[in-house]
């Protein structure tokens, strides 16, 4: 019965209903069907929301990025990237993913708010704009999605190489509770193949995206020539 809440989420997301309202309704329905009182439900929602405020601290970075953008961050990024020969949006995304993997494997966290929005995405847009001139909205969106994905790929698939990562600790903790003896270093070693394969997959996808954008603008130029 409690699974109806999940159904609400799935249907709500697919139908693109208001996300906040969908999440709250799913929560209330699940709680009620799971035998919780309305006060318990409100209390669980409210106290978790309050203790998780740290998730919103990235907001403190936004004013700074806003000012930098006003003072020419994107223009300058475009200018710089134009000087590097052969740098495309896709190659930049792959390069960033590689850096992201190396950093997280050493326990250093980068991220969407600190890295992708102020640096990587404007540089990737700049790389494409230097080849094709002003970009259309679809291409801009493609590049944005590629930059965001590069961060997630690098973060997810290389983090368990760092032995003090919370994921590694979770694996060790869970297995020990189940009665197995494990050490963190073997977990970290077991995480390496996936990190390499994920990088190869992302490289292929980003290269294909570069080709797709190039084709799109070739077609546009031909149309213009007629």
């Amino acid at each position, binding site marked *: 019965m409690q699974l109806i809440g999940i159904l609400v989420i799935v249907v709500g997301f697919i139908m693109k209903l208001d996300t906040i309202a969908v999440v709250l309704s799913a929560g209330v329905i699940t709680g009620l069907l799971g*035998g919780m009182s309305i006060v318990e439900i409100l*209390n*669980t929602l409210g106290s978790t929301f309050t203790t998780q405020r740290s998730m919103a601290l990235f907001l403190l970075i936004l*004013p700074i990025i806003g000012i930098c953008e006003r003072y020419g961050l994107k223009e300058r990024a475009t200018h710089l990237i134009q000087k590097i020969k052969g740098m495309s949006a896709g190659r930049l995304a792959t390069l960033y993913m590689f850096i992201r993997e190396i950093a997280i494997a050493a326990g250093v966290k980068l991220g969407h708010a600190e890295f992708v929005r102020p640096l990587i995405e404007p540089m990737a847009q700049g790389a494409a704009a230097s080849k094709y001139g002003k970009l259309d*909205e679809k291409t801009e969106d493609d590049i944005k999605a590629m930059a965001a994905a590069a961060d*997630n790929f690098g973060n997810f698939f290389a983090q368990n190489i760092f032995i003090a990562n919370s994921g590694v600790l979770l694996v060790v903790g869970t297995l020990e509770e189940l009665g197995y003896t494990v050490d963190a270093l073997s977990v970290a070693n*077991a995480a390496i193949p996936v990190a390499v394969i994920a990088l190869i997959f992302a490289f292929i996808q980003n290269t294909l995206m570069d080709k797709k954008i190039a084709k799109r603008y070739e077609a546009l130029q031909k149309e213009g020539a007629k």
Partner: protein
Amino acid sequence: MSNELLLEIFYVVVGLLMYLVAFNVFRCKENQARIGTTLFWAILGTIFVFGSYLPGTIVGILLLVIGVLTATKQVKHGKVNAPTAEFSAEKAKALGNKVFIPSVLIAGLVICIAKFTNFSGTVAIGIAAAITIVITLFLTKADAKTVASDSDRMFQAVGVTAILPQLLASLGTLFTAAGVGDVIANNISNFIPEGNILIGVSAYCIGMALFTMIMGNAFAAFSVITVGIGVPFVFMQGGNVIVCATLALTAGYCGTLLTPMAANFNMLPVALLNIKNKNAVIKYQAYVAIPLLLVHIALMYFLGF
């Protein structure tokens, strides 16, 4: 200063910035959803500033009010003071590469503070932001009014998505409290045949991915699915516990890439980068996530046994 005290200070600052947005929206008479949007930001500001003193139930009620506001389309992007392309181009020439100093500084400071001090990663973000804003103002000679209007502009651009990760974390807690995890694990283990390694391995990987998609969090899925599927159908058949469990966790991450429930990874960038299509990041990631999930099954089958 302790982590807790600094965190509390940063929450108050975020809350005050939200009040500022509420004030700006309230003054903007053209906004069709003026009252609703003002209320939205004011309520959020209140939760951030006074959250530690408000009972959970009250915050819960406030969240429901926010839900009603967003459901009835009463929260809208107001008029903001956006920079002109000419101004930015001119400043880019004048400042040169110095315009990168704040971006590089934030990233560098967050890393250094988190690594070399006892402050946590989240506190490090706050400290880095505090130091960098001073440097930024010094570099750009921007005045306090610019800080206020750019804060307003950026907050409104991120909009309601800003609180989605927090809200989904609350939902996850509620799911756990209501016993959703146990129900799913029982259901899955009921219809997997025993004694076939490939089926067991596939069920472990796909189960991790699916359950992560539902919960939006691979960590929550890991213990449930490992107990429900991993132990009886993979470990008991002789699988290498460490290799299989580690692969199961990243199989779960393939699910994270595919779900809007993982808002801080998939929805937040959409808002941060101002992407038109809400599902663009998930769509792009699907081309890597799905093949990679199949690779997980193969790796677990060949490396784990």
